[in-house]
């Protein structure tokens, strides 16, 4: 059974039809990178996987459970899905440690001591064990994003969603975050990553999904989708991303 299975997903914002029928699965242990031009619906797709966006049509199954079913226990489904946002969304009123324990103690009912131990372990995994007492405002963007990853990991998720995790970072801070994500992938975490980092996708992804205009245009191993794309739209997009100075020949 696939960890995530999406069937015929449709999502509109008003008259803007963002997702136009998505069928898509993520297997246990798989790292999937979703690429595509802005406005192609890739972030919306990701946000539908934990139902931050409610689709108008179609189903999202997580471990076989249909989370679009209104009788589904959405909160317990979400516990299994870690989410990392483009803007980090750390809780500014809580210390780094408390950011990583608040959901553990309130949702998983772990004891404070146990939650803190787990939080320290995950902060260690992202290389921030010296920042436990700091507040998010005192950290760089790259450090904040690593705390956000640790916060999600503290809940022992079966799946991690990354919504353009490096897009809000200064270029020199991107590397630290990608290193953490690479390590996570090597540890066998199932990951669904919306990204513009082609080098990361090529190196880490088991599968790359190219989206455009609310549909999946092409998907497959990175060597095929990025290295040797079949579709014209994929080729055009990759030319623009990989060589920003490239100018389209005017017909």
């Amino acid at each position: 059974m696939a960890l995530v299975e999406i069937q015929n997903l449709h999502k509109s914002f008003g008259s803007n039809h963002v997702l136009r029928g998505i069928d898509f699965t993520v297997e246990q242990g798989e790292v999937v990178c979703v690429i595509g031009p802005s406005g192609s619906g890739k972030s919306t797709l990701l946000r539908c996987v934990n139902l931050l966006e409610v689709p108008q049509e179609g189903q999202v199954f997580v471990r076989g459970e249909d989370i679009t079913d209104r009788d589904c226990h959405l909160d317990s489904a979400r516990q299994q899905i870690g989410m990392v946002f483009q803007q980090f969304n750390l809780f500014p009123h809580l210390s780094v440690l408390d950011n990583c324990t608040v959901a553990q103690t309130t949702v998983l009912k772990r004891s404070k001591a146990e939650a803190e131990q787990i939080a320290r372990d995950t902060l260690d995994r992202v290389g921030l064990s010296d920042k436990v007492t700091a507040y998010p405002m005192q950290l760089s963007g790259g450090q904040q994003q690593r705390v956000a990853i640790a916060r999600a990991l503290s809940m022992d998720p079966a799946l991690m969603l990354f919504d353009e995790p490096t897009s809000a970072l200064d270029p020199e801070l991107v590397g630290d975050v990608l290193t953490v994500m690479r390590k996570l992938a090597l540890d066998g975490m199932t990951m669904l990553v919306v990204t513009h980092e082609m080098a990361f996708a090529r190196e880490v992804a088991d599968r790359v999904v190219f989206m455009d205009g609310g549909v999946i245009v092409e998907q497959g191993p990175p060597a095929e989708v990025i290295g040797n794309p079949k579709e014209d739209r994929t080729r055009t997009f990759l030319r623009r991303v990989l060589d920003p100075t490239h100018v389209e020949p005017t017909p």
Partner: protein
Amino acid sequence: MTVSDAVVEKRRGLSPRQRAQRSRGIQYAVLVVIVVVAAFTANWSQIANVFFKPEFVKSAFTSGLPGAFLKTIEYTAGAFVIGLVGGTLLALMRLSPVAPYRWIATAYIEFFRGLPAIVVFVAFSLLPLAFADLVIPLDPYGTVWLALGIVAAAYMAEVIRAGIQAVPKGQIEAARSLGMPVGVATRKIVLPQAFRIVLPPLANDLILLVKDSSLVFIIGTSAAAYELTGFGRDLANTESNLTPLVTAGFCYLVITLPLGLLVRWLEAKAARAH
């Protein structure tokens, strides 16, 4: 006339700096005239006798001013707590997905915000007449806290609602995506941040509440329950001199000026955090 002629022509008048100097000079002159006229025409000894007579200041302190001062603080503090709890409840009701809750909260807020506080106090003073066996506990505190708190809640609800809505949407999304139910996310993530945002305006409401506590005398409290205004008014009546009331008035400043500083400090702190 050429363009350069026009420039020369303009330079012959006053320069902007000279004009500013002349304007400032006139303002100072007006001020000096007013002060001089006031100093010579007013009957200073009588003014001092009526408003600032030292022996009456002294007698105010010996005949119960400190107690009244304490009462003002007690009335305000209790009403603030009721206002804070009620205001938070009303704010959450206004943002509730259940429509009737929104209607009730909106009606309450609009009603008590639009009504002069003194009308509410008069109503409270008449309650025992309308309901003969009505007993509000903790007399006189219960009645005072309730009357002040009911009005304060309406004001504070709007402030708190604005604070809740000022918490970025990403905060709720992050909390919900960690599996927190709405209630936990509200309590642990949204409200603490909302209160931080509205701390300065809430402290401002507290200052207004200190002053509104002076309306308590309308309820018809006994002499033992007098706060500053009731006390000052009573003593000014018996002494036929305004000094006790002026003294009570200064006591309000003793409370409100530090609170005003607190508001400014909180605002500066909030500005630094962003």
